């Protein structure tokens, strides 16, 4: 949206006030303005198309779009709702965040403040490499390695935490939301780590020395100066990761065995996510079925927007105390 009001026009206008307009300036202004407008037109076109097709589908829907557990979008009359998908998407992404963010912050701190340079540099490369693995490869690894190896952990969780209901496990292949979440956690680890590491690295030396001179240990230095400084950066990093987790398609589709049910247990197979459902259903869907999938995609888009807005609020709330005005 910043392309809307580029600061660029100020300079060419000064030029024309003197009666001189440079050709290069004119061309560049036209080019940058054109790119900005093209982006807006493209966004508007996508938004109009999606809303229109979604509206068609929701109009034809015989069930409650927001609360129904069914997905019979190709039937006549179509009956479908996004409750299961919204639940699965949000829950799997949240679990992924809970698993990934602490580990990512730990790795980032290790690289930026603990590891000797000899170790920190190669470790950084490995993390970068992890980010470069295609998601379908993660999916295959998840299906062939993670699924069979998680059954042991699930049996253990069921034994000690089964009474909560959340961790009840009936045996069988571990193709559940929790497995998807573990995979998502591994997938978002690099981005959260990298962004956090960059933020921690920029934490002002001045404040670290202030803490040291007061007799702080290394961990206390990190607690007093590095973490408060990096707080908003870590939140942004987590949101980037959450954005990826919410929208991840192939990896989830490969490890999850979907069903249109919301279960208390996270470990038993079933459930679904927006992106996984679209990938699984798009090929065989009829016209209304496709529109229904588009409508579900719109909901995913709205959820992502809300999450980002919430993150911005959290960051803005304590601006007065942020490291930015140091």
């Amino acid at each position: 949206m910043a392309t809307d009001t580029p600061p660029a026009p100020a300079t060419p206008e000064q030029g024309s006030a003197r009666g001189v307009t440079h050709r290069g300036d004119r061309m560049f202004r036209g080019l940058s303005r054109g790119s900005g407008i093209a982006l807006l037109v493209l966004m508007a076109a996508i938004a109009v198309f999606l809303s229109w097709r979604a509206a068609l589908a929701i109009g034809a829907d015989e069930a409650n779009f927001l609360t129904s557990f069914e997905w019979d979008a190709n039937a006549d009359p179509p009956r479908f709702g996004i409750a299961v998908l919204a639940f699965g998407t949000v829950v799997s992404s949240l679990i992924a965040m809970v698993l990934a963010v602490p580990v990512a912050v730990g790795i980032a701190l290790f690289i930026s403040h603990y590891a000797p340079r000899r170790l920190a540099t190669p470790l950084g490369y490995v993390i970068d490499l992890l980010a470069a693995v295609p998601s379908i490869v993660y999916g295959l690894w998840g299906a062939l390695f993670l699924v069979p190896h998680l059954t042991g952990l699930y049996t253990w969780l069921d034994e000690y935490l089964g009474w909560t209901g959340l961790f009840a496990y009936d045996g069988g292949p571990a193709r559940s939301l929790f497995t998807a979440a573990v995979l998502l956690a591994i997938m978002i680890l690099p981005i959260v780590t990298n962004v956090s590491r960059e933020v921690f690295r920029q934490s002002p030396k001045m404040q670290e020395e202030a803490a040291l001179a007061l007799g702080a240990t290394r961990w206390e230095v990190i607690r007093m100066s590095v973490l408060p400084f990096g707080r908003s950066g870590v939140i942004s990093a987590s949101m980037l990761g959450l954005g990826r987790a919410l929208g991840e398609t192939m990896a989830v589709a490969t490890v999850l065995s979907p069903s249109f049910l919301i279960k208390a247990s996270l470990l038993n197979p079933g459930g679904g996510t927006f992106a996984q459902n679209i990938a699984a259903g798009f090929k065989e869907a009829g016209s209304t079925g496709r529109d229904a999938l588009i409508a579900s995609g719109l909901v995913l888009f709205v959820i992502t927007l809300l999450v980002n807005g919430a993150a911005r609020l959290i960051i803005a709330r304590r601006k007065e105390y942020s490291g930015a005005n140091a």
Partner: protein
Amino acid sequence: MAKRIDVSGLSAFYGGFRAIDDISMTVEPRSVTAFIGPSGCGKSTFLRTLNRMHEVTAGGRVEGKVMLDNEDLYGSGVDPVSVRRTIGMVFQRPNPFPTMSIYDNVAAGLKLNGDHKKKDLDEVVERSLKGANLWNEVKDRLNKPGSGLSGGQQQRLCIARAIAVEPQVLLMDEPCSALDPISTLAIEDLIADLKAQYTIVIVTHNMQQAARVSDRTAFFNLAEVGAPGKLVEIDETERIFSNPSVQATEDYISGRFG
């Protein structure tokens, strides 16, 4: 509270580079000792060896001996963290913790030491801010962030933070170089007050400041760029500025130095 510092044969290194060479001196308790000398002569490095901050820098290493009364700061088994709790430091640029309030900034060191009783903290915060001549300016906004203060106030906040833990020694690394003349005067007045209780070492580029605030002055110099810094002489400030025993000191003081 104040203790004497005895340095003998101290050299400091950055990796393979010898930054200061074979320095020996005594810093008297309850007095102000000023370090002067051209840029790069190692006076800040030397200051940072006195509370073991030098070794925090990558490649930082020290040879020699620093005695605080009868305790060897570089002795085996001495924890640098506890050394830094005994010897406070104020830096060139004011560096209050931006995420903390004024109150929390002053209390930061005490909280590290594990003193958490709210009433005690209140007392120490008030006493330290009064000690740093800042209390009257901030007593109504203790919960506001420290970064909202002026530069001079921030520097006095940093002094309050350093004296809140009642150190034996207070090291100041060009504490006024980022401040305007009025704030500088406030800090100098404060130094004069503080020396009744603390051993103070101050690095300064401002020779008038050294003459105004210190009892004893040490002059550092280096033979050439890339050569290690050395202590040329240390003496009563009055003597250094009127009748120094080394010609190089006189040249530097009178501005005849390159």
